[in-house]
Each structure stands twice: as structure tokens, then as C-alpha cells.
């Protein structure tokens, strides 16, 4: 074979190899994109299923809680009140006959304490403020209550011009309220803040609430680590409530100010 022919074959060979490698890359890239699309579809389906399941569980749990609250309110409290009243009447009769019953009367005061405790439990399940005035007012009141017996200051501000009805169902609002209450309880327990500001930042595309404080902060990586090692129910419940609302809770900690940003997309 002469030199020219060999050179042509050699150069053609080199170019063919380069072409083949580029072809291989193109095929890999296309196949990877196809795989990704399929995986993404599966992921979305899986997430939808998960949301459906969690929503059903949350709803069932909520219904059960409301049922318990209703029974406590409608059955147990009247029963205790009636029993207390009947005993009081009987005691009054006995006292008229000259029997000393002051000690028993003191004991009976426990009935009203039990009634108060049950009312508190009912309000924990279905906050009175929430049912009467809605999510934002209930939040404001809860935040004000956090200042009681506490040197630190917590405030709520509405930084939007929004003042109408929130674009969420009652169930969704109750879930948002419970998320906020969990976040606020965690801040009260762990962050040791002197000043906490909770502000409503947006009610357009998203519903955004910002929790800013000057206490011990945490970032997203740290909360993820905590979520993995924690055996408590708080973070898990919080996570499932966020999934139900397709919401994000972002933690940041910069220059002495720690922020938690709750972002809930508004379905249109």
C-alpha cells in the first residue's frame, strides 16, 4: 500500500473514531434525557400519591380531633357541670341541716378546674380564635400569648395590603395554623430569642410567612440532619403537613438574624 493511501486511511480512521465518539455522546445524552423524563414522571406520580395519602390521613385525623372536641364540649362538660350543680344542691341541703361540709365544697372546686382543662384541650384542637376570626387573627393572638411570662418580645405584622379572605379552604388554613404553631413552639423552646417578628410577606402567587429572630438559628442542612436523627413526632408531623400543602420551609442563619420562610403556593 502506498503512503498516500495509508495516510488517507489513517486520517479517515481518526476522523471516524472522533465521529463515533461524538455519536456515542449524542446517544448517551438523548437516552439520559429520556430516562430523566420517565423518572420525573414517576417521581411526580409518587409525590401526588403521597400527598393524596397524607391529605386523607390529615383529614381523618382532623375529623377525629373535631369529633373528640365536639364530644368533650357537648357531652362531657355539661355532664360535669350537671354533676357539680347536683352535688352543690345536695350539699346546700345538708348544710341547712347543720352539717359542716366546707372541706367537701373545696374539693368540688376541682370540678370547675376539670372543666377549664377540658376547654383548654378543646381550644388546642380547634382554636377558638381560629373558628371565630380566621387564620391571621388566630396567629396574631397566639403570638401575643407567647409574650406572657416571658422577657422576650414576639410580634406579628402584616406587610401586605391584603385583608380579605385567604385563598385556602378551612382545612388548609387549620393545617397552616398548626405548622405555624409548631414552628413558634420550636422557636420558643430552642432559639432563646429576645425578639421575634412574624410577618406576612405575600399573598399573590404564594402565601409567604417570615419568622425572623435574633436567637440561636439553624440552616437547611442542620434541620435536615436533625430530621434524620430525631425520633420525636414534631418534625415528622411538620414535614407531613408541609407535603399536604406542597409547602416549603426554608431555614437560614445570616449575620445574627435567623429566618424561617414558610412558602405555600396558592392554587388557582
Amino acid at each position: 500500500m502506498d503512503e498516500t493511501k495509508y495516510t488517507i486511511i489513517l486520517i479517515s480512521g481518526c476522523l471516524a473514531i472522533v465521529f463515533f465518539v461524538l455519536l456515542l455522546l449524542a446517544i448517551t445524552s438523548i437516552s439520559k434525557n429520556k430516562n430523566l423524563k420517565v423518572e420525573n414522571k414517576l417521581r411526580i406520580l409518587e409525590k401526588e400519591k403521597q400527598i393524596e395519602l397524607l391529605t386523607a390521613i390529615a383529614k381523618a385525623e382532623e375529623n377525629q380531633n373535631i369529633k373528640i372536641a365536639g364530644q368533650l364540649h357537648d357531652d362531657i362538660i355539661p355532664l360535669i357541670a350537671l354533676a357539680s350543680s347536683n352535688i352543690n344542691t345536695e350539699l346546700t341541703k345538708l348544710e341547712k341541716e347543720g352539717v359542716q361540709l366546707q372541706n367537701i365544697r373545696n374539693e368540688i372546686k376541682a370540678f370547675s378546674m376539670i372543666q377549664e382543662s377540658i376547654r383548654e384541650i378543646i381550644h388546642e384542637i380547634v382554636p377558638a380564635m381560629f373558628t371565630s376570626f380566621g387564620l391571621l387573627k388566630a396567629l396574631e393572638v397566639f403570638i401575643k400569648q407567647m409574650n406572657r411570662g416571658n422577657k422576650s418580645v414576639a410580634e406579628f405584622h402584616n406587610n401586605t395590603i391584603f385583608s380579605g379572605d385567604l385563598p385556602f379552604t378551612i382545612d388548609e388554613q387549620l393545617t397552616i395554623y398548626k405548622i405555624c404553631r409548631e414552628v413558634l413552639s420550636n422557636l420558643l423552646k430552642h432559639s432563646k430569642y429576645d425578639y421575634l417578628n412574624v410577618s406576612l410577606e405575600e399573598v399573590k402567587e404564594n402565601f409567604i410567612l417570615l419568622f425572623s429572630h435574633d436567637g440561636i438559628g439553624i440552616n437547611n442542612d442542620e434541620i435536615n440532619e436533625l430530621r434524620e436523627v430525631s425520633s420525636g413526632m414534631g418534625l415528622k408531623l411538620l414535614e407531613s403537613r408541609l407535603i399536604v400543602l406542597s409547602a416549603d420551609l426554608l431555614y437560614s442563619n445570616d449575620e445574627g438574624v435567623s429566618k424561617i420562610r414558610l412558602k405555600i403556593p396558592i392554587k388557582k
Partner: protein
Amino acid sequence: MDLERYAILEKFSAYSVYIPTLLCLYRIKALNKSLWALVIYLLLCILSDQLSWFINGEYRNVLMNIFTIFEYALIVFIYYEQFDYKKIRLGIIIISITFLFLYIFILIYQKNYSSVDTILSPIESAIIAILAGSYLVKFLVDPKIEKLKKHYFYWINLGFLLYFPVAILLFLSFDFLKVCKPSTLYLVWGIHLILNTIKNILLTIGIWMKRNIQ
């Protein structure tokens, strides 16, 4: 191709290796074990390039043979670090040790360490090309890797995948290149220089894509 153009290509190829090397040194905090091996490989390329300006004839071939051994060991180490399947890693170790012993044994036994071997150098390139091709399959099946172009090793692998398969053909034709006309040699070896430059550019992109290790 004339000597003047070939000389330009040669300079481009020789200087292109400085770009990824300097970038590696600039982003030293981002380097993992694979990238450290890559830095050593790049420094070795610079060293052998510089030495080859001063050394001629037989000694140049000795230098090339030594460079080939180190080049092979370092690139294989890079792939060893990148593959996380135990069986593939074991395979890499077995093939590498066999190849390195064979290479050194043949060079010493045949006492031809001062001439370029036309069998073992293509085998070296072929092994690296196979590893680069296999890694392409890993890219395809690994669910952790979502966007190929954003993964630093995609570019490094692409550099090796373009360079080494062509090198197989060129090393196999070494006997022909020794006796052909200078213009033919410049033309064919010019392809090698262009591919080497492209490889170095791709390595630079790969290193640039590597994020800092937290």
C-alpha cells in the same frame, strides 16, 4: 501540512496543558482524590514536554516510555476512584497490575526501553478508552447524576474519550510514521496535537465545574 503550521499546533498543544494545571492550583480546595491524580498527571505532562525539548533520540523514547507508565497509572487511578462498584474496581486493579508488570517486563526483557513500543502503548490507550466508554454507561444508568453537562467528570471523561481511541490508531501506525514523508507525519501527528489541545480544554471545563468540597 508544513513545518510552520505543525510548530504552531505543537506549541498550542504544549501550552494548553498549563490551563487546567493552573486552574487546579487555583481551585485547590475543590480537589478530590481523582483531581489530585489529574493534577499530578498534568504536571507530569508539563515535565515530560519540557524535558523533551532538551532530550533527543533514544533518551526521548525512554522518557516517553516512563511517561506512559505514569500516565496509565494515574488515569486508571482516577477511574478507580470514580467507579463505586466493587467488581469494576477489582477488575481495574487486576488489569492494571497485569498491564504494568507486562509493560515493564517487556521493556526490560526485550531491552527495547529506548524505542517506542507499538503494541503496549496502543493497549494502554485501549484500556483507558474502554474505561472512558464504561464511564459513559455509568453516566447513563446512575440515577444520582441528573444533568450530564453539569457533572464535572463528564467533561474530564469526554476529554479522555476523544483523545485515547484516536491515540490507539496513531500508536499502531508508529512504524509507518517513522518512515513516511515529513508532510505526512506533520499532518497525522497534527491530528494528535489538536485532540490533545481539545482534551486539555475539556479537562479545564471539568475542573471548573467541580464545586468546593464542604
